[in-house]
C-alpha cells in the first residue's frame, strides 16, 4: 500500500517556452546544447554545478540553461545560478532558460529571486 505519491516522472517541464535574458546577443553565436540542471539541485552537488557554470561564464553568445527536470532545489544552488546570471548580464552576455520546472519557479519565487534569475520572461 503506497499512500504517499512518489516523485513525478523525471523530465516534465511545465513551461516549454524559452525566456530571453539578453536580446543584444541574438544571432551572435552558435547555439549549443543547454546545460541541463539535475533533478536534485542540492548543496551536495553545488560544487559540481559551480564548475560547470564557471566553464560557461565566459562563453560567447547565449548560454542556455535547462531547469525543466529540477524537482528539488535549495538556496545554495539558486545563489550560484543568480550569481551566474548576474555576472553574464554585467558582461553583456545572454542567459536563456530552455525550460523551468514548477519546483524551480516556486523556489525562486519564495526566495524573491525570480527577476534576478530572469525567470520572469521579459528580455532585459
Amino acid at each position, binding site marked *: 500500500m503506497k499512500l504517499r505519491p512518489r516523485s513525478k516522472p523525471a523530465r516534465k517541464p511545465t513551461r516549454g517556452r524559452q525566456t530571453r535574458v539578453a536580446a543584444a546577443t541574438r544571432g551572435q553565436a552558435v547555439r549549443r546544447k543547454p546545460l541541463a540542471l539535475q533533478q536534485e539541485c542540492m548543496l*551536495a*552537488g553545488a*560544487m559540481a554545478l*559551480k564548475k560547470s557554470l564557471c566553464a560557461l561564464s565566459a562563453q560567447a553568445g547565449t548560454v542556455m540553461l535547462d531547469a525543466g527536470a529540477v524537482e528539488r532545489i535549495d*538556496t545554495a544552488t539558486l545563489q550560484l545560478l543568480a*550569481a551566474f546570471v*548576474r*555576472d553574464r548580464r554585467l558582461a553583456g552576455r545572454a542567459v536563456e532558460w530552455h525550460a523551468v520546472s514548477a519546483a524551480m519557479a516556486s523556489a525562486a519565487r519564495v526566495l524573491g529571486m525570480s*527577476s534576478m534569475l530572469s525567470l*520572469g520572461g521579459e528580455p532585459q
Partner: protein
Amino acid sequence: MTVDLTQFHGAFFEESFEALDAMEAALLKLDIGAPDPELINTIFRVAHSIKGGSATFGFSEIASFTHSLETLLDELRSGAMPVSEDVSEVLLKSVDVMRAMLRAVQAKQPIDAQRVSDLQFDLEVIIARKNQAPPTAAVPQPPAASAAPRWQVRFRPYRELLARGNDPLRMLRELSELGETRVQIDAQNLPPLTDIEPQDCHLAWTLELPGEVGEEAIRQVFDWAEGDCDLEVTRLPEGASDLAVEVPPSPSSPAEAPVALEPPPAPLASQEPPSAAPAPEASAAASRPENTVKADPSMSAHADSGSIRVSVDKIDELMNTVGELVITQAMLSQLGGQFEGPQAEQLRAGLAQLERNMRELQESVMRVRMLPISFVFSRFPRMVRDLAHRLGKQIELKLTGEQTELDKTVLEKIGDPLVHLVRNCIDHGIEPPETRIASGKPPAGTVHLDAAHRGGNIAVEVSDDGGGLDKARILSKARARGLVGANDTLSDAEIYELIFLPGFSTAEKTTDVSGRGVGMDVVRRNVKSLGGAIEVSSESGRGSRFTITLPLTLAIVDGQSVAVGTETYIVPLISIVESMQLKNGSVSRLSGQGEVFSFRGDYLPVIRLHQVFGVEPRTRALHEGLVVVAEGDGRRVGLFVDDLLGQQQVVIKSLETNYGHIEGISGATILGDGSVALILDVPGLIRVASMRRAA
C-alpha cells in the same frame, strides 16, 4: 567534485539527538485529547528540522521517514486530527526509529529498513484513516487587507547558515504558509560566481507578513537558524509597506504555480473585523523589535543563544594547560620562599596573588566541563513509562536536583548504572497495584531520582516506595549458593551487601527487564571505576534506597602525599580510612599471609610500599614509619610508608596515555618541585600484593 558535507555531520547528529530528546520529552508531556499547541509545535519543528538536515546531507531514508512523520504532525498541528493514544504511541516509536536511523548513519551501518518501513506504514495508515473521515479543519483565515499593520522581518543569514543544514528556502516557504508574504532579496553582497563557496550564504531578505500572524509564529520559523543569522521582527505602522517585491506562491498549489511573475494579489476588502488583530498593542510595539518568544523549558537548550558548542578535545587541552600552569605556579611558590632581601616580600605577595588567580582559573575551567545531571535524568520518563506499561504497574517518577552539575565524563558513565537501578526498582521494588492496595498503599508506586552536592562529592539517590529488599530471600539464596555459611548470622547491612555479588539475583523468574544477575555487581564496578561508592538501605514494606556517591570530577583528586625513601606517592583521600603509628610488637607474622596488625578488632595485612615498588626506604622497622589504613574493593589493608607529607589536590595525568598501564597505579601527577608522583590505585595495589604473597 562536491562540497565535503561530512565535516558538518557531527554537528547535525549532535543537534538531532538533542532535538529528539526534546521531542520525546514534549511527547511525554502531551495530554491525550487536549494537547498543548506549543508542545505540538515543538515536536513538529524537530521533525521538520531533521527532515531538512537529512535531505541536505543526503540521508534519504531519514528524510523520507520524517516526511511521513511531518505529514502526520501537520494534521495534529492544524487540529485536523485529534491526539489519541495510538498517535502518541506511534510518535514515540518514531522517535526511537529516528534515533536508531541516525545512529546507524552515524556509525555508517545499514539502517534497519524493515523496522522503518513498518512504522512508516503505520504512520501512513493513520494519515489515510483521517483522510477518509470528514475533515474538521479550521476554516482558513481570509487574507487581511494590506493597509493593516504588517510585520517586517529582516533576515540576514550568516555565511555558515547553509553549511549547518539550514535552508532559507525552507524557512521562507514556511513563512509564506503563515500568510501572504512579500519578499525582497538583498544580493548586494553576492560575490562573482568564481569567488563563491557554494556552502556560504551571501544573500539576505526583507519580508513582510500580515499583522494577524503572531510574532511568535514568525520567530519560530527561524528557531533552528538561531545563532546563524540576524533576525529582526518589527511591526510596520499602517500602510507603511513599501516593498517592491515578489509574492511566493500559495503553498497549497505549488505544482500549478505559473512561471511568470505575478503582481501581488489585490488586497481583499475584509468583510469581517480582524478577529485576533492586536490593534491596540500595534502602535506600542511599533519599531520595537521585541523578543517575546515563549520558550518551552525543554527547548531552552536549543534556544539559548548564549551558548556555543565546543568539542571536548579543546576543553581537555585547556584543562591540560591549566594543569601545567598549576604545577608551574606551585614550583614558583616553592622557589619564592627561598628568596631573601627587600624585594622578596613583594615577590611573595605577587606569588600569592598568582596562586589565588590560578585557583579561580582552574575552577572556571573545571566548570566548563560540568553539565547538569538532567542530561542523564531526561531519559528516565520514557523508560519508566514503557516499563510500567509492560509490567502492568503504575509508576510515578519523581526527579529532583536535576540541575546538579557534574563532570561530563562522570555523567556519561553514570547513565547505565542508574538505568539499572531504576529498572530494578520498577521490576523488583514496586509491587503490582493490587498488592499495593492490599497493603494500604496508593496503587501507583513512586520512583524517586535525586541528585545533590554533598561536601566535595555528588550524591545520586534512587529510591522507591515498594516492598523493600527481602532479607530472608536474599539470605536463603546466598546460603543455597554457598556464599554464606548455614549458621552465619549477618547484620542487615551485610545482607544487603550480598546483592552486589556477581551472579546474584533473587527474581523468581527472569524477565527481559532484570533478573539475569548481571546487574548489581556491574553497577558497583562501574561506580567504583569512577572513584565512587554505592550504598543501599531498605525497610521492609516501605521501599529501598540506593545512594551513589561520586567525585565531582575525574581530572583532579584529593590526595594524601606520602614519602617512601626519596619517592613521593599520592593516596586518594577517598580510599583512606585513617593513618596511624604501629607500636613495636603489635605486628604478627602469619605463615603464608605475611604481616598483619590489629585494627579495631580486625587483622589487616601490611603492604610495604617500598617492597611493592622496589624503593630503598628510610626505615624497614614498622614502628618507625607510619601505616595508612586504606580500603579498596571492600578490603582493608595497611600501607606502610616512611612519612605523611600533606594533603593536596592533584591534577591527574594519565599513565596509560603517556606510558602504559601499571597495576596498582592509577595515574601520575607533577608536584610543585617539578618531580613526578605516582597516584596509587588501592584496589589494584591489594591485588598486586596478594599475588606476590601467593607467589
